[in-house]
């Protein structure tokens, strides 16, 4: 392993009912994924305000991923449908501003999909690591 390997910082917003439980299941099954992923629990993916995502980038995150119940399975019936629209529009806007589209992602992970959770995180970390440090949505004041 290289000593100075670049480690991206990933913030993962997980809905309480499906994806957070999916992450727990990944843990139960001892499925590895990089420690760069830090999970924040939210009741539903629709609780995630675009401001939180921008805030994460401002403070030094290199990638932000939202995980929620599969469409149709939302604990609150429709929350993830709103998430899907909001994030489709937000991500498209970020892309329009020239911000790498690979840094943001929405993934549907059910409580039974521990393996999918781990695989998703492995893939996302790899993708973001390949992009390198977030420069386009950084706040220079927050750099160490």
């Amino acid at each position, binding site marked *: 392993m290289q000593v100075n390997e670049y480690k991206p910082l990933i913030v993962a917003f997980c809905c309480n009912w499906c994806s957070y439980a999916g992450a727990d299941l990944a843990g139960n099954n001892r499925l590895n994924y990089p420690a760069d992923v830090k999970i924040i629990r939210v009741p539903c993916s629709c609780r995630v305000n675009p401001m939180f995502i921008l805030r994460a980038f401002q*403070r*030094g995150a290199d990638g932000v991923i939202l995980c929620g119940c599969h469409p149709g399975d939302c604990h609150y019936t429709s929350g993830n449908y709103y998430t899907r629209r909001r994030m489709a529009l937000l991500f498209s806007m970020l892309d329009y501003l020239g911000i790498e589209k690979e840094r943001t992602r929405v993934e549907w992970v059910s409580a039974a999909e521990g393996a999918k959770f781990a695989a998703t995180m492995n893939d996302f970390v790899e993708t973001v690591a390949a992009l390198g440090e977030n420069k386009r949505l950084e*706040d220079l*004041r*927050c750099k*160490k």
Partner: protein
Amino acid sequence: MRKISLSKLPELFSAIAKTSALYLPVDTKAGAKFEAWAVGKTLSNALNTVRSAKDFFFPQTENLMDFKVEGKNIELIDTRKECEDFVLFGVRACDVKSFEVLDRVFLAEPQDTYYKNRREHALIISTACNKPQETCFCGTFGIDAAEPSGDIVTYRTDDELFFDAKTEKGKKLLDALSSITEEADEKAVDQQKALIRERLQKLPLKDLKTEGFGSGKTAEFFDDPQWKELSSACLGCGTCTFVCPTCQCYDIKDFDTGHGIKRFRCWDSCMYSDFTKMSAGQPRLTQLERFRQRFMHKLVYYPTNNDGLFSCVGCGRCLAKCPINMNIVKVMKALGGREDA
């Protein structure tokens, strides 16, 4: 007095830039703007820049200091650096005058060291206004666009630029430029001044007078019923204050970077509802009060505290940029500036 052919301006700028950083108005798609000169950049022909020259001394945001908190200890970090010398080229008479207005605020005791640092390292090369705009009313405030102040004053004719050093600092720079400039007589400049004065007489706002305003007039205007109508369309944005060369209000805030605090200041606007908000609330609760504050400050409060000097220089930027076209001229006319002429 020295002069240079306009065709040799790039040489001139290059020569100045060798001694210190040089900023001059250049055209951008968003209008004229002061930019650091670099080879290939040409001087704008616009009368004035969209933003005023105050940005050089009083930038919109500025870090004041950093501090770190660890446990119960606070470590202060002084982030100040000595400013490098720089030259501001092409400043108009109004903007030069605005520095005087700002100086009286920032250089009064206790002096603002951040401001002072930059002010002391600046050399101002002003330019007389060949073609004033209909929104110009610097004359109202006793400013002569044909005779700006500054370390060096320049006049531009069709093919030449004339230099007149007004301060020691200015003379020194002019001397240093003597190899690329030539001696000039004042005749051409006098002609140019006459042309400018003739043009100033054609300005629609030339008769706007300040006589009704000034020191000690608070009671006279404060409760004027016309404030209601004047302020009614005001959206409460900060455009007028931010393009104004003399508006000098700021707010000081702390930003938590996650590994320390940055204490910075940024422009504030008396048009904003949270301006000077205190624990007890806002002192000015309505847009009328905030609107009144801005103009009373320019026309009454500031002169009261500064030997009658008005804190408006008649640059006309607010006339050009207000989204709903309300401005100090309309206020002065409504409240009686003209009648006292």
